[in-house]
Structures are given as C-alpha cells and as structure tokens.
C-alpha cells in the first residue's frame, strides 16, 4: 500500500503537469494557477535555500562560535543591496570591486589555459604525429584545423571579405551551420526526453495505487473545456442576437 503522502504527491504532480500542458490547447485558469504556484514555490524554495544553506551555516553559526572574520565578507555582500538606495549606492562599489577582482583572478588564467591554449594545442597537435596517424585521423585533423581557421576568419572584421577571402569566410559559415544543426537536433532530442519524463510520471500516476490520478484530472480538464466552450458559445450567440 502506497503511503498517503505519496498518493497526495502523485495527485499534485499529475494535476500540475496536466494544468501546465493544458496551455497547449488554450489559456485557462488552471494553467494560471499552476504557473503562479510554480513561481511562488520557486521563490519560496530559493529563500529557504539562502537561509538554511547559506545564511545559517556560513554566517550565523560561525559568528555564534566567535569566528568574527566572516562579518567582513558579509558586510561587503550587504553593501551590494545599497544599489537600491541612491544616496548610499557608492558603498556597493566595494562589494562589486571585490567580486570583480576575485572573479577575474580565477576566471582569466583558467579560461586562457583551458579554452584558449589547450584548444590551440589540441588543433595543432595531430600534425606533429602525422606519421602515426591513420588516413581518417589525418582527414579529421585537417577538417578540424581548416574549420577552426575558416570560422575564426568569418569573425575577423578588419579585412573586407571579398574575392578569395569571402570564399574562406563562406566556408566558415558552413561549419557554423553544421554546428547549429547538430545543436538544434540535440535540443529537439533533449526536449523530447523531458516530455517523455513527464509522460512517464503521468503513466505512473495513472495506476490504481494512485487512484487513477492522471485519468481523473484529465477527464476534469476535458469536461471544463467542453463546458467552457458550450457556455462561451451561448454567450457569443446571445451577444450576436443583441447586436442584430
């Protein structure tokens, strides 16, 4: 026997999922309820995460134990909020300055090494190993290096793209299009996977152990749309007759 709270959770999940999907048919109050509930619950969740996972363990508990140094970053963090008070907004610069310095110090060396030097090395490296590479690997290395150069050239605007240079730039566009195509195909697959996940849950909640939550909610929604269509149709007819 499934626990009552799990059954209630199943009904809530099935209901909210169907309410949200109902927008695909037509805007309705149930969709609005689910939408607002989602926003409210999301904000509430973020607030409790900030309090329970950040404020209490990182500030309150250390200060209670006498570790007063954490007050300095806390105050710097609070200065960011002075942005909302024009007279005091200058104070926020100290917080932002620290964040910028700390962030840049971490990100710039790592970015240069990981995304710049390593990638250049990765593109060039196969050409130093040509003797040990198969024909296919050599073709791959040429394709990657050629593609990288053409795409980079497409984004180089200091020379006018005409004649042979335009052709190189156009090849770059084709490489970009291949990437966008692959990314779009994967996006479609990802969206289907997420949809499958919701449908899989809806199927789970359609079982007798959940008292047929999916079917009941779905039937109620269909009934709502039928009744709404019927009565709004009558109203439109009446309005039409009055106008005539």
């Amino acid at each position, binding site marked *: 026997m499934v626990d009552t709270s799990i059954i209630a959770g199943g009904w809530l999940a099935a209901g909210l999922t169907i309410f949200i999907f109902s927008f695909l*048919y037509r805007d309705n109050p149930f969709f609005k309820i689910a939408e607002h509930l989602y926003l409210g619950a999301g904000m509430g969740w973020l607030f409790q995460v900030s309090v329970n996972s950040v404020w209490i363990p990182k500030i309150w508990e250390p200060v209670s134990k006498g570790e007063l140094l954490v007050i300095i970053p806390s105050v710097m963090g609070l200065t960011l909020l002075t942005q909302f008070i024009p007279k005091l907004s200058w104070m926020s610069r100290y917080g932002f300055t620290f964040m910028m310095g700390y962030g840049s110090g971490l990100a710039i060396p790592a970015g240069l090494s990981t995304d710049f030097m390593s990638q250049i090395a990765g593109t060039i490296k196969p050409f130093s190993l040509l003797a040990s590479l198969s024909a296919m690997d050599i073709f791959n290395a040429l394709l990657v290096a050629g593609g990288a150069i053409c795409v980079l050239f497409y984004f180089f605007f200091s020379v006018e793209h005409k004649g042979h240079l335009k052709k190189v730039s156009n090849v770059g566009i084709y490489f970009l299009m291949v990437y966008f195509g692959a990314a779009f195909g994967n996006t479609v697959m990802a969206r289907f996977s997420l949809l499958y996940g919701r449908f899989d849950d809806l199927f789970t909640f359609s079982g007798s152990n959940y008292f047929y939550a999916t079917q009941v909610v779905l039937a109620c929604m269909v009934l709502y749309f039928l009744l709404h269509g019927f009565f709004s149709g009558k109203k439109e007819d009446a309005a039409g007759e009055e106008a005539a």
Partner: protein
Amino acid sequence: MKDTLQKFFKIDRRWIFLLLTVTLFVPIVKPIGLPNKSISQATTRVYQNIEKLPAGSFVLLSLDYDPSTRPELHPMAMALVRHAFAKNLRVGVVTYIAGSTGLIEELFARVGKEYNKTYGADYVILPYQPNILAVMTQMASDLFGIYTSDRNGAPIGGMPVLKGVKSYKDMSLIVCVTGTAILDYWVAYVGDKYSVPVAGGVTAISQPGYGPYLQTNQLKGLIGGMKGAAEYESLIKQPGKGTSGIDALNLAHLLVLILILTSNIILLFVKYF
C-alpha cells in the same frame, strides 16, 4: 489539388501536439523494444575510465541537476553509481545545485540497497554548498576544510569511505552529471589545474559544446542526454529508464522526420507542378 495540399500548411498546430503526445505515450504503455545498437565513443570512454579502476579507489560524483532535467540525467547518474558499486569503488557525492539533494537521496536509497552498500563505509553524501568556485579551490588543498560534516550534520572525519582522501590528488576520477555549466568549472578549475581525470554527463542540448574538450582529452569521456544514459545502461548490462526512453525518442524523431519530409515534398509539389 494544390488548394487541398495547401491546407496542410494551415493545419492547427494542436493536432501535431496531439500526434506527438500519442507517439510518446504509446511506448510507455506498451514498450516496443526498439534496439539501441550504436554506443558512442565518448560514452565508452567514461565506462572504460571507471572499469579500469581497482576496487577501493575513490570516485567523486558531482551530481548537479534538479527535477527539470531529471529524465535525462537521473538515469545516467543511476547507471554510473551502479557501475561504481559493482566495481566496489568508494563513492563521494557533492552537489552545487540545491534542488538536487532530494534526487540524490532517492538515488542512493535505491542503488545502495541493490548493492548492499553501507553509508559511511562505501559512500558518503556531502551537503549542498554555495559558491562553487570557492569550494573547488578549497578542495584542492583540504577537503575537510570545506566539508566538516555530511548532509545530515554527521562528522565525516572518521568515515572509512574518506580514509586517505584529503584532496584531488587522492581521487581517481571525478564525474560531473549536470545540466548547467558546472562541468566547465570542473574541467577548467580542477581537471586542467590539478591533473585530475574529469568525465561528465550532460543534457543533449549541451553535448555538442563539449566536443573540443573531448578531442583534447581535457574530458575523459562524456555521456550525452537520454541516448547516452541508454548507452551506459547497455554497457553495464542493466537496462533502466534510459533504455526504456529510447522507444519513445526513436518514434518521436521518426514523426519529426516524416513531418519535415511531408511538408517539404508538398511545398515542392505546390511550387513546381
């Protein structure tokens, strides 16, 4: 004839939604069992990197996904944990997405029982931490400097699972499963900087962007989307939610292909005949 065909382009999109719903729902109700024959090299590399580790090695899993990406990422996390437990590896779990804590609990409650693993001896779940970069930097010198207790507040210092594990150099592999940019951080701030092998599991949307890291071996392997999860389940020979989702994905893609082809053929017919 042309007028009739042109009606196809004015079809109410809700019919397509309904068709897609039916296409995705049918294999859930009645699985067809379409095969998942191709296994990508990137997924195989993750499998091989775990497979080659001797029993007792410490693997750090960074499970950073919330319910919004659960259908894609939860099956692959489950397959990774199953593989690690089957190989008798020690597993440590960290997360930098607060919403993932419930999913992590669910995962280990299930897989831990399947393999008769003991919490504290075979695996440990560390609490959510904000400011990921500060945590990553600190873990390079002293894990216990940033994590003093587990997610329930129990001290982790004496746990057998963390015996001899102080920093990244004591870890055999880091695998990050995420729908965010956290895998990029693991590569840039940990993998490259401290020469720790880093592998990943990501949503299908982010998958193409990690190609350059795979080519340069900055990433030791990559599982991409539900397809990747199904591939990994095939490799460990334990079909799960990833494998069952392949039916639905195949049919949905087939539907999209048919719709694209049909509309293009009709368009050409209307234009040239």
